[in-house]
């Protein structure tokens, strides 16, 4: 899951980046509104953390441009405490949720999970497919109640596929979402293949049924019930 953090306080950004990266999210940062717009135009994020008070172009301006581009990336607004007007304005402009500063890390993480879930059209907090279930909050995976020991990266890949279930995901765009664009997706796509191979082995019987290979295109997790 690739997240863009937009805030003009470098210290806060670094802290958030460290926390989220440890959890397996891929983070990009922008320190002003123009940089944020630039990034939004070129990259593909699963979520944006957006501060309202920004130099060069404020958060509302960034939101406006994002929605004008017909991008439906979920946006979590970070506002100053008590700024009711700001929150109303932000939500009306297309933000999906808000969080007043200062906030607790746990609340931020919960809201991020909720937003990712909602934008994927999911109701349950658990990501489930046939006998596989993932809990993004605890980052635990189970196969028929049996815990599955996944590495951070493996969990992220599986999580990404589950959030985008029933869609064919290209190896390159997977690489981009998992590692960000600092890494070369043409090299990292090979890495994806290795990870998928390892995960299938861990899942055991039926592993290649759950994570399907779409020849020449990528991977997909498909809900059989549909």
């Amino acid at each position: 899951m690739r997240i863009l953090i937009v805030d003009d306080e470098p210290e806060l950004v670094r802290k958030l980046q460290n926390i989220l990266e440890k959890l397996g999210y891929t983070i990009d940062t922008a320190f002003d509104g123009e940089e944020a717009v630039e990034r939004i135009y070129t990259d593909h994020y699963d979520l944006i953390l957006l501060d309202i008070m920004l130099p060069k172009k404020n958060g509302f301006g960034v939101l406006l441009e994002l929605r004008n581009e017909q991008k439906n990336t979920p946006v979590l607004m970070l506002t100053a405490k008590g700024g009711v007007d700001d929150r109303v304005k932000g939500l009306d402009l297309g933000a999906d949720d808000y969080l007043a500063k200062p906030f607790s890390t746990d609340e931020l993480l919960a809201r991020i999970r909720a937003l990712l879930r909602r934008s994927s059209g999911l109701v349950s907090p658990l990501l489930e497919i046939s006998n596989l279930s993932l809990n993004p909050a605890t980052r635990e995976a189970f196969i028929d109640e049996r815990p599955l020991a996944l590495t951070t990266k493996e969990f992220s890949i599986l999580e990404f596929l589950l959030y985008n279930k029933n869609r064919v995901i290209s190896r390159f765009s997977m690489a981009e979402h998992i590692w960000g664009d600092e890494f070369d997706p043409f090299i990292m796509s090979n890495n994806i293949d290795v990870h998928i191979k390892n995960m299938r082995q861990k899942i055991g019987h039926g592993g290649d049924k759950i994570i399907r290979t779409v020849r020449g295109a990528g991977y997909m997790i498909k809900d059989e019930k549909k």
Partner: protein
Amino acid sequence: MRIRYQITLWITLAGVFASLILSLVIFFELIEESHELLDQELEANARSLAKNFEFLAEGPSTQISAVKYFTPYWVRITDGKYRVLYESETVEKVDLPLKETTVIYSVPTNIPLNRLFSTLEEDEDELATFRVFIYSFSFSGQEYQLQIARPIENRTHEIIELSGIIGGGLAISALILILISYHVSGRILHPIKKINFIASEFSERTLDKRVPLGEQKDEIYELSSSLNSMFDRLQFSFLRQKEFIANASHELKTPITLLRLSLAELLQEEETSPSQIEKLEKLNETVLRIERLVKSLLSLSSLELSDTLSPEEFVLNELTDSLIEEFHPLVTAQNIQFISDIDDQITVKADREQMKRVFINLFENAIKYNQDDGEIRLQMWSDKQNGTVIIDLFNTGHGVPIEYYERVFEQFYRVEKSRSTALGGVGLGLTITKKIIELHNGTISLNGKLGSWVQFHITLPILMC
């Protein structure tokens, strides 16, 4: 020699030379002047004696009074045939030769001065020199000659003293000149120093800095204003270039994004057949390649345009460890051994994001051009004496011909073009890597053996003590 010293030297030399000339003129004038005064005095006395010749001729009584009057002059009056008519008392003591012309001349004698001037002290045994004036006149048809003389005061002492004073004065004035001209030249050159400082510091960060203009419209003012207008033009083109890059990036990135979105949409369509999916994915790959090329170009030009890094303190080996971890599955799948040999803890101050990029580029490079069952070896150590971190990254593989060691860092330069393109490179990775290292004042070089191995050697002065 610095201009300040040159100005000081020349002003001082010119000043000393001028005052030396002036002193010499005054010096000689003073010596001459005293003679002139004496000569005028002798001549005046000679004339008045000649006028009073009538009384002198009358009798001894007037003679005596005249003699008293003319002490301490040496006086002798002769007629046309050089017979002595009158002699003053001093003539007995000093015999002065007589010359026939009407001239003024000096005659040295061997008579000590103190015998002529009682006021002089005994021990001053200088010899007297006489100044003689000869005056011819006629009186009731007869030709007469008057010789009048006076001892000249010896001026050697005064001359020596005067020369001493002049020398001392010259030395003092030279010293004052040095001080003043040093100070003045410093004041003149100060604006130039300032201009130089601003011009040398001029960079992307100080685009709006200008040389302050003085109040007087002098040469410095002209220099400053022409420099300022040059800075204006530079700033303009800097901003134009920046604007161009921003615009170009936007113009290029938007259609690419649209393409990618449309392709992703098509991939999800139910009716898309597997063979179409395959083609679409190939298309997607190409679009992605263009996108990466655009991004690399833009990040390279923004690195070249701005020299702003945001350094922070971090542990370098933690960064490399986490990056190696990312590549681990891939490396293992190719049965490549990734060995890292690192000093305990290397704390550095550098731009973390940019350093991350350097290592990602280098690691990707080492994997891309490696062989199955190959090896990658990362060695890092800190050189505390020089405050540098030294990094060696070795990998097995095809290697690089020696003549390309420099060229691999050039834009779009690839040793094996076909192979590199197949591996997804856009030909800017090492250029960006080198640029980032240079922005950190470091160096990167290549070494190796063709067909066997290559090694990047990096030194970075970013160590924290």
